[in-house]
């Protein structure tokens, strides 16, 4: 067994101490949070390029057209058209705001979890290389 193989065996053996378990658990959860953030960002990008139709508004397909007809008869077609424009303008602005909020939310997941992940992952790396060196030293001694 050469030194590299020995080091691997030693590293595998010592990895189950409490500190390693803790560091790997933190990395695991932080990585899941990063993945959730990445999925959120992707979904926001998809929502941006495929704007959805509001099915629940007064002009949605589920609404009764005769309702709008009687409004038109009473207040005029211009009034109904103006209302439709107001509603759709606000709807579009709200959708834009929602996209920005979703974008920031995805970035928050990644931005908060990534430093936690990187910090603990580097700590694992330092710890393992130090352990490998010290164990290799013991073996040689």
């Amino acid at each position, binding site marked *: 067994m050469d030194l590299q193989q020995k080091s691997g065996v030693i590293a595998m053996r010592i990895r189950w101490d*409490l*500190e390693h378990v803790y560091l790997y*658990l933190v990395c695991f959860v932080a990585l899941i949070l990063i993945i959730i953030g990445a999925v959120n960002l992707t979904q926001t990008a998809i929502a941006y390029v495929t704007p959805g139709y509001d099915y629940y508004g007064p002009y949605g397909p589920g609404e009764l057209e005769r309702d709008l007809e009687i409004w038109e008869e009473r207040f005029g077609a211009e009034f109904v058209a103006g*209302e439709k424009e107001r509603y759709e303008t606000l709807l579009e602005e*709200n959708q834009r705001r929602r996209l920005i909020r979703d974008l920031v*939310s995805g970035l928050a997941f990644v931005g908060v979890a990534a430093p936690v992940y990187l910090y603990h992952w580097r700590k694992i790396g330092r*710890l393992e290389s130090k352990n490998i060196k010290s164990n290799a030293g013991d073996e040689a001694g």
Partner: protein
Amino acid sequence: MAKAWSIKNLYYYLVCLVTLFMFVGGAISSVNSAMEIILPDEPNVPIFYTYYPDYRAEFERPVFDPPSLEELEARRAEQENMEAYYRGYSTRRLLNSMAFMIIAAPFYIYHWKRIGLAAEERGDSDEN
């Protein structure tokens, strides 16, 4: 850092793990709540939702006797004000999320230090 499996070390690490992610969750939630405050939805109530025609039978022409436009506008303004009022909960959600961070942080710091002290007591390495 303490490496040995003992109930005390396990307890310290578990507290650190939970409080760390309480802090992380609080931070993410705070950003989301802050965005709801900074960039809220505009209330958008269609005027058709301020008065409903009365349908007595399915195919019958509905009874449509709405109040004046001024009255309908007043009703819409009232509904939109109500929506704006409920948005005020964003502030409460922000404070709730910050509470998570503020309360979890000292517990994390205290227990993280205890891990170091426990390692010193046992003579474990504390260089990492």
